[in-house]
């Protein structure tokens, strides 16, 4: 039972951390909760569908369909998070100033919320489908231990959700002055980490070269399956033995989004000046 709890906890944790950060990052956006729940439900339904079609997905692209699927899901999430940060770079100040106004730019808020929904949905989809498969395996295997193990799964899931919520609640305590800078930085690292993981899947599928594998090995100092390693992997994409190409993806996304945020932050000034005239 304990083993089951840990496995489910690890699968859920990554999704929970992503949801915790993204929820905090979209603080003050109107209608946010509804979209969040919609994303969560869509992700859960999707997990079931993906788990049920593992065979079909796996047989795509001569046996590497699973990697392609995971890389695509991650790629879309990276684009969404990039868009979120760029959007926030031009609207974050407004949100911070008048946390309650918002009725005025609901249409913009809506596009931001649909991004939130997609990111949450994809996070749940990817991690959830593996959990579903795992629990299905337990339920399908005979023996009296199945019920205890499913209970363990539930405990693990709740623990994962608790960590996600703790991150969310902790982020909300950051003073407003630094709040959007902090969540923006977290989303940025989250996106870079996802890009690195996407590269990892593409390397595993032999679609892109590894360049150097591994580029470094810190598995003895900070193992990826330890608590700190797992947390850092989810938060900033830590990899104890990354391939060179993963680092290339990581840095490229980090750089591209930062650039986008910088550019998006600038034009507002000119608009404000025009408005003043």
């Amino acid at each position, binding site marked *: 039972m304990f083993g089951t709890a840990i496995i489910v906890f690890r699968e859920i944790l990554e999704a929970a951390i992503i949801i915790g950060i993204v929820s905090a990052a979209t603080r003050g956006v109107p209608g946010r909760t509804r979209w969040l729940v919609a994303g969560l439900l869509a992700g859960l339904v999707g997990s079931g569908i993906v788990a049920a079609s*593992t065979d079909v997905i*796996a047989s795509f692209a001569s046996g590497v369909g699973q990697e392609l699927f995971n890389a695509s899901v991650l790629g879309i999430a990276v684009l969404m998070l990039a868009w979120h940060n760029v959007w926030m770079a031009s609207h974050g100040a407004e949100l911070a100033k008048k946390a309650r106004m918002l009725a005025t730019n609901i249409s913009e808020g809506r596009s931001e919320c649909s991004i939130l929904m997609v990111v949450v949905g994809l996070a749940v989809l990817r991690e959830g489908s593996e959990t579903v498969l795992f629990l299905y395996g337990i339920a399908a295997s005979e023996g009296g231990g199945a019920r205890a193990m499913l209970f363990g799964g539930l405990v693990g899931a709740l623990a994962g959700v608790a960590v996600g919520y703790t991150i969310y609640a902790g982020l909300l305590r950051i003073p407003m002055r630094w709040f959007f800078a902090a969540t923006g930085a977290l989303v940025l690292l989250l996106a870079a980490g996802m890009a690195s993981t996407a590269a990892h899947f593409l390397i595993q*599928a032999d679609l*892109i*070269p*590894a360049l150097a594998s591994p580029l470094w090995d810190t*598995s003895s100092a900070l193992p990826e399956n330890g608590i700190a390693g797992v947390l850092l992997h989810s938060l900033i994409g830590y990899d104890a033995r990354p*391939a060179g190409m993963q680092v*290339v993806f990581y840095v490229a996304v980090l750089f591209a989004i930062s650039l986008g945020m910088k550019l998006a932050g600038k034009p507002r000034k000119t608009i404000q000046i025009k408005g003043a005239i």
Partner: protein
Amino acid sequence: MKNISLILLLAPLLSSVASYAAEADFKLVIKDHRFQPAELNVPAGKKIKMSIENKDATPEEFESHSLNREKVISGNGTATIYVGPLEPGRYDFYGEFNKDTAQGVIVVK
């Protein structure tokens, strides 16, 4: 954004570089939540293509921290995983869904 699309454009170009080393094929079977063979000998410095056939009805997840690989293999399904080129040494792997029994090691010589 521009950089991302640039990378996406470059990816297929770069992938042609990947085929520099001829790959070697190896086969693993999962049965009764165990890997067969539990010890797989492969050559060093070569890209390895592993086909893993799951003869159990329940899904399994092939996982290896030392190889930095993880992949779900559905019940009665087959999956392909590429690793390497590898340095000589021992690389352990396991089935995450049945960790008690599903253990194995790749020996690179």
